[in-house]
């Protein structure tokens, strides 16, 4: 499985940073780690009470919040850990095997 930008794979040994040290910040934005997912959460908007218990437990910032309301999942980095599904008291998050 490849989870780095394809362009990086063509870099020669002279072009990559020595020691694998990453010399800039925020590089995780470029890398789609959502590929690792086996299980996938789903947002059931009509059951959601906007209690916002789910978004602080997400380790991958996959639950965007706008104007104090959570929105649908952003799956680019969601690894399907299921913690959000576990904390939701209203059954507003489903958790099933992802069809790939």
């Amino acid at each position: 499985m490849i989870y780095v930008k394809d362009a990086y794979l063509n870099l020669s040994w002279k072009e990559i940073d020595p020691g694998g040290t990453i010399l800039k910040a925020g590089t995780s934005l470029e890398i789609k780690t959502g590929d690792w997912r086996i299980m996938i959460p789903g947002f059931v908007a009509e059951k959601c009470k906007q209690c916002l218990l789910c978004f602080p437990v997400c380790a991958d910032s996959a639950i965007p919040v706008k104007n104090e309301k959570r929105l649908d999942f952003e799956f680019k980095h969601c690894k399907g850990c299921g913690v959000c599904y576990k904390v939701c008291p209203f059954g507003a998050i489903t958790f099933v095997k992802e069809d790939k």
Partner: protein
Amino acid sequence: MGIRERLAGNEAVAIALRQIDLDVLPAYPITPSTDVPMYYSQYVADGKVKTEFVAVESEHSAMSACIAAAACGGRTATATSGPGLALMWELLYVASGTRVPITLAVINRAMSAPININNDHSDSMGARDTGWIQLYSENNQEAYDNHIMASRISEHKDIMLPIMVCQDGFITSHAIENIELLEDDKVKAFIGEYKPAWSMIAGKPVSVGPLDIPQFYTEHAYQRAQAMKNSKKVILDVFKEFGALTGRKYDLFEEYKMEDAERAIIVLNSSAGTAKCACDALRAKGEKVGVIKLRVFRPFPLEELAKALSHVKAVAVMDKAECFSAIGGPVFADVRTACYDLEKRPQIINYIYGLGGRDVRLEDFTFVYNKLDEVVKTGKSGEIYRHLGVRGV
């Protein structure tokens, strides 16, 4: 010029490190290296250095702290011996793989078991493949000089590899000899200011030690291998500059009476002095013998050594470490490799000697020279993998 003193090897190392004025010195004591951080902690207590001294709970932690300090852009060093070096093992690779400069004073000690606190080279020889540069020191003067030069080599922008400076436990670490020290300001000027390309505390974010996937690990290994290859030139440049400053001229190895030598002994660290003495006695009788003292073992000076041995008839490689390969010691293997491409190869035999502090005497080297004479006269190497002074053999 210089300051005349008389010091044991460990104190000489501590003084070199004081003159460098490290940013961080993490340390865990182990015989016979303990004196190095012991003296240094006194300099810290007396306010002679600005160093952060970290009393860690193991050698594993000592090396971890060195790596962290170096990743924060600091100059750092520690000292260890034998089993202490073994406990650092995992981190030795992390240090060289992360490409951070660290100086490690290795006061060579035998590996347990059976437990033994005395000298041989099985600790640093075991660590020869960890991506560290290795310098070896015959006496306290060389140990001191090597430490002054070590950070310059290790911190060079094209190298960025950690470096071990080895000397023989007790034999030179605890024996007091005359020494010439540099003035503090001269050391400061020689080593200069360390300006790393990146640092974890420089304000610009970096990630150190992330996962390296198969698509990149090979390239990173190649980078490290290239740095080790390139380090030979940097080492020679630093030796040259140091020679101009002190008058003490160093090379990758020292050739002692090798110009017309037909028989040669190759040796590291303190035994070189004994070997030279035996060489002198035989030279006085007109025998064409010489000594090569390896000072730089990693990177291995392959081409240079091959050239130095090209006119020699028989060579005895002295290994103060038994590496249980069933074919000979580590120095022997590399010397044989170096000679393979010679048009006229010398006959090369190996002696494992001086293990666990076994005394190495003048007559031991005379014995080896005599054995080389047999090899030359008969044209037959016989057993190439030999052990010196084993009872019943």
